[in-house]
């Protein structure tokens, strides 16, 4: 429940690059999406306390968090510390380790300093070295920043450790929106309406969160600025539905489902939910829009042919085309923020499975197969992973999976039933 973790924290946090050999221009990056790639083997031994003889327990905690953040990216495997006793002077080559992360920490009052280097075992050179100073409260933020630099050094694109995940949790007879980090270390309750809140959506800059809440009696749309935790703003209170806005990539528009004209239809609105134009008209249910990264098209759900399926609309011509034909029902589409790939939920033999498809209808792929319901998929900010709610018994838990279907795992476990995950930088 640490609110400060999500405030603008990096003011106090300083970061310096340690001297390291300049990175070779011909560096070969790892393709994070190739399914055949073997995982890169990292060892993250316990961080050493710069003040020798002082308490070393912090060093285990720091190493553990960094190892988990690195592993989260799906391309890195971690050598268990039990194999070498957590020491920084193990024989890495013998252990089959590709990179060893050598960290040092110093505690001084409320402040924590970190100095972390990544040693390339094959060349015996330092791949990356950085130092950080911040409060003890900011230790995860510092480790996540370092993790993202390591991922960038390996893949050419920054990692996603320093990101935030919103979801709805059903506890104490209310559904409220929460925010957490990728490891679920810090949990912040965003809404306190003590009622029913659904469909959280980040604005594209990640600074605000829109959601739908019933606490006034009607189902209204709100938006809250995440840099504070006191107020929210009502932006659409039309009679009936005010649901699930798709934010345009530039954050200037949203496509909202409203039922003011007697039917759940999509409306193009400005960022304050003022209607610009009605996009669908009395053709059954129209809901759950998602914008293409170039802003030219949307995908959405409609039951205009009887059952829910995914449709695309070209926003300049308003031409609508059906995208999914496999599966008895298809819904909850979400367009990748980085490429032409759409993730959605497909009902296959009575079970909801996560699938992807290209907007031209090709390369349809089913990512999940086990007989639990997999629902509400949405993308990681780097477009490499998909987060979703997986049902086990009578509750849902948030899971993630690589976009090629590998590395499915629950990413954190909070009490209650957790649904509607959304992910943002």
């Amino acid at each position: 429940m640490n609110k400060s973790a999500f405030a603008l924290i990096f003011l106090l946090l300083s970061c310096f690059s340690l001297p390291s050999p300049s990175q070779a221009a011909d560096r070969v990056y790892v393709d994070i999406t190739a399914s055949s790639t073997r995982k890169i083997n990292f060892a993250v031994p316990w961080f050493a306390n710069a003040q020798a003889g002082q308490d070393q327990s912090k060093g285990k905690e720091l190493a553990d968090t960094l190892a988990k953040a690195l592993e989260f990216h799906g391309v890195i495997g971690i050598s268990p510390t039990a194999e070498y006793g957590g020491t920084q002077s193990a024989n890495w080559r013998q252990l089959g380790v590709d990179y060893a992360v050598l960290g040092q920490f110093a505690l001084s009052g409320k402040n924590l300093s970190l100095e972390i280097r990544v040693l390339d075992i094959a060349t015996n050179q330092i791949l990356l070295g950085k130092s950080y100073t911040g409060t003890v409260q900011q230790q995860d933020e510092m480790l996540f920043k370092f993790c993202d630099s390591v991922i960038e050094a390996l893949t050419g694109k920054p990692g996603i450790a320093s990101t935030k995940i919103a979801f709805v949790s059903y506890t104490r007879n209310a559904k409220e929106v929460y925010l957490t980090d990728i490891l679920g270390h810090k949990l912040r309750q965003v809404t306190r309406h003590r009622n029913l809140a659904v469909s959280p959506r980040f604005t594209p800059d990640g600074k605000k969160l829109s959601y739908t809440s019933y606490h006034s009696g009607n189902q209204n749309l709100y938006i809250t600025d995440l840099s504070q935790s006191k107020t929210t703003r009502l932006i659409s209170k039309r009679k009936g539905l005010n649901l699930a806005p798709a934010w345009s990539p530039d954050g200037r528009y949203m496509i909202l489902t409203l039922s003011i004209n007697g039917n759940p239809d999509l409306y193009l609105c400005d960022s304050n939910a003022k209607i610009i134009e009605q996009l669908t008209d009395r053709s059954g249910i129209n809901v759950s829009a998602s914008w293409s990264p170039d802003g030219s098209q949307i995908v959405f759900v409609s039951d205009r042919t009887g059952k829910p399926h995914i449709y695309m609309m070209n926003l300049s011509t308003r031409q609508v085309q059906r995208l999914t034909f496999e599966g008895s029902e298809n819904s909850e589409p979400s367009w990748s923020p980085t490429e032409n790939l759409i993730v959605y939920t497909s009902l296959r033999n009575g079970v909801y499975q996560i699938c992807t498809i290209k907007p031209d209808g090709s390369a349809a792929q089913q990512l999940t197969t086990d007989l639990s319901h997999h629902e509400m998929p949405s993308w990681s900010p780097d477009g490499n992973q998909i987060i979703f709610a997986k049902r086990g018994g009578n509750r849902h838990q948030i899971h993630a999976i690589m976009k090629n279907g590998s590395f499915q795992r629950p990413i954190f476990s909070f009490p209650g039933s957790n649904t509607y995950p959304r992910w943002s930088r």
Partner: protein
Amino acid sequence: MMKRLQVVVPALLCVSVLALTGCGKKADTDAAMKTDAAAPEESLDSKGTGISEGRTSEGMLPVYFDFDESAIRADQTSRIQLNADFINKGTVNVRIEGNCDPRGTNEYNMALGERRAMSAKKALLDLGVAEAKLTTVSYGEERLLLHGEDEMSWAQNRRDDFVIVE
């Protein structure tokens, strides 16, 4: 709001509130006869049982739907008529709450529940209810009445409730 635990069993056992009140009166009569004593006179107006079906306010009845459908079934029209009569003879405002079973995805079900609420609203308007007295809201599958994974539970969840609002 979500902690309103509802009495579900009577809703399942009795077809309607009317039937339930009927049972109660019969039991009273039987008991009175057994004691073989003249019961004191009492008012013809009794207090309600406080029990209603689904989450519908007493005096009205919920309306049930087929799977993934929002049209009013033929066997539900008498309930619409009863609700219309109730609203027409009083001064209350009523919120029609559309609900779905948990099959189907959440946002889709939110829209489906809205269509169910709107179907009932249209049917009530056709029976002369003033539009100003009616509002609609959809809870989709967010407020399930029964959590079972079987047709009996699902059928109870596919429902419009009619709730008196101030």
